[in-house]
């Protein structure tokens, strides 16, 4: 029986991989409904990445809708998402707030300097404590928060042009934001 354990473990892996391939073939990266949707975003008070003396709170951002994009320099998938943000951030028609998650500020700054900075401003959450209130699983994740501070939409995983066009853009229009015509 003992001798069969490695084989059993491997078969489990094969099932997982098969599932992964099937998933890729049949889905784009999907949105998972979050219990936070329709609820007020948690209050936060975080320093800005490029100027830690300045702090940004939830109250500062009320009054118009914005996107909150959770990223980190250590996050591999964020590297995939980054060119999409670079290309489309300005087309969306609302501020894109970067949320640097469990990251060293120096690494994040270097990461943005090397690849370009698509964000209106970047806040940093080194400990990840605030992210717990947002229900962040990992990076990247994106929250759409409206003028009253209510979370309207959440996307887990990298934003792709398809996700932006098919899922995010309709949500934006509902809030009265007019993304560029291509979206």
């Amino acid at each position, binding site marked *: 029986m003992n*001798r*069969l354990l*490695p*084989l059993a473990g*491997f*078969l489990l*892996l*094969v099932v*997982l*991989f*098969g*599932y*992964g*391939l099937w*998933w*890729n*073939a049949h889905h*784009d*990266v999907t949105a*998972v409904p979050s219990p936070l949707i329709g609820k007020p975003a948690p209050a936060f008070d975080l320093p800005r990445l490029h100027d830690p003396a300045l702090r940004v709170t939830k109250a500062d951002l009320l009054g118009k809708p914005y996107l909150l994009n959770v990223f*980190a320099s*250590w*996050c*591999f*998938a*964020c590297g*995939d*998402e980054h060119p999409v943000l670079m290309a489309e951030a300005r087309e969306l028609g609302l501020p894109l707030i970067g949320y640097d998650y*469990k990251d060293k500020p*120096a*690494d994040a*700054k*270097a*990461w943005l*300097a*090397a690849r370009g900075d698509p964000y209106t401003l970047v806040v940093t959450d080194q400990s990840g404590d605030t992210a717990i209130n947002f229900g962040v*699983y*990992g*990076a*990247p*994740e994106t929250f759409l928060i409206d003028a009253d501070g209510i979370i309207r939409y959440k996307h*887990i*995983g*990298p934003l*792709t042009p398809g996700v932006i066009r098919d899922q995010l853009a309709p949500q934006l229009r509902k809030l009265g934001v007019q993304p560029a015509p291509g979206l």
Partner: protein
Amino acid sequence: MIPELGEVALILALLLALVQCVLPLLGAWRNNAALMAVARPAAAGQFVFVALSFAVLTWAFMTQDFSVAYVAQNSNLSLPWYYRFSAVWGAHEGSLLLWILILNVWTVALAAFSGHLPPKFAARVLGVLGFVSVGFLLFTLFTSSPFGRLLPAPSNGMDLNPVLQDPGLIIHPPMLYMGYVGFSVAFAFAIAALLGGALDDDWVRWARPWTNFAWAFLTAGIVLGSWWSYAELGWGGWWFWDPVENASFMPWLIGTALIHAQAVTEKRGGLRAWTLLLSIFAFSLSLLGTFLVRSGVLTSVHAFASDPRRGVYILVFLGVVVGGSLLIYALRAPKVAGGKPFALLSRETLIVIGNLMLTAAAAMVLIGTLYPLVGDAFHLGRVSVGPPYFGSLFILLMAPVVLLIPFGPFARWGKADGSALWRVLLIAGAVALGGGVLALVFGGDARAVLGTVAACYVGAGVVLYARKRWREAPAGRRYPAEMTGMLVAHAGVGVFLAGALLTTALSVERDVRLDPGQSQRIGAYDFRFEGVHEVRGPNWTAQQGKLTVLHDGAVVAVMRPQKRVYSGGQVQTEAAVSAGAMRDLYVALGEPLGSRGAWALRLYDKPFVRWLWFGGLMMMLGGFITSGDRRFRARRMRAMPVPGTATLAPRESAA
């Protein structure tokens, strides 16, 4: 016409691979010497055709034949010849061809240097390697042929990904593949032993030099990869725990466990089943790495997902090879006898603990790498865990291994002398404590102290053992290759630890805005920014900065970081590195700021960063030295080695 020849050569290679797989295995089973004798010529023939095919693809790059789709996608008229050469393995199709070529190099080497193996065993080993080759050739021919045409041919190509236009990338993949693929030899030995049922310990002795050799190449590949990402990615890091790196690191961890387990099995007959299993695991993880990197399961945004057949094919192949070999293991392994008993305090125990830690570390890396996939399966979303997970767990798992290193050589097989180990602990501990105090005096933080302590501790262990051998062993037999390799590799671990921890602790990084003529002090160095001007390369134009670095008023370096725009439009930073034994100075160019020539610059002072690669190269050297031990080439041991002095066993000359 010529590219089609490449395709034809691959088909012929496939046929010969089939011959090399089927006939010798059949011959070994039916005891037919004529069928077994087919193995070597078939392997040689296959190698010739694969090499021909590889040469054809290289020729297409050299002559800029853009009618070949793969060349058009990965080359450009202005691409210099040396990058056209490395562009052969710059993308999926060509790197597969390189994989197959290297598998054939290993197979031919094995065919040539296996005269001392029993004919049946050699036939089985070559047959198993033939099977692996069949799988990869089929994969290439059916899903990933690099010889597809593009009609009409474009007048110019799209250019090689600029990230890959770096000298490091010319040799990094071949080295890495030599390691990856080299584990196929240890794998083939294990499967041949299981198939033959002759599970005495000779096969392990024959497998050891090959395993060490492959491990050394893999080490070199990983070191090169790390150095490349440091020099090329422009933000001074040397390890990122990204899936591609992890794919090469998992086989390395298991390979490290394997070369130690093999020593136990060869010398004491213990851990036989475990050694078999590790041999299978090491190669399986190489295949798994190929699957993860090539199938797009982890990075669905990447282009590979465009052809789902590839992922399915590799998964099926992985299932056949790994599932099949684990099944053979499950059926045959119960026949494996246990080895000599060993006491709780013995070299065997130390190696078992080290093995468990290394295997656990590999499992940890695997779980972390697969986490996005698992998250997907349980509808948690495709998210990454990063260094916060890997870094802390890895250090926890490796700390006990480092702690054990000095004791390994001192602990006798079977039963170690506790008082001798106690003495080693006292001396190594005292040296480490001295190093720690010194680090404190020089003002390092906790990580710097830890690095110094670990390096002194490991180094003291190595020196103590080298001294013991010098005093106690007869002249001429003091340092056999196997032991020298072990000492060099263990010393390399110490050097690596010093480099990794000290550079993490002491590095100074600054993002600054500098006007021309302005200076910034980093550590003990003044970086004077002289300005930026435009320079041209063969297929790029660049903004090139110039910085003069002064130390106590004397110029120590002039650095020229670049921000390149390639002909394809991609932007790539080229950091300027002034390398030194004690420290690297490192400058990367950020963005222009304002109209008066000011730039954002990233300046680093990175003490001891070279040490971590140098330590890695010492480990590599240790692997090569060990694999050269003449004892491994002996057909039969004349006598069982005496416990505790196993490396003094009779040394026969090569067969």
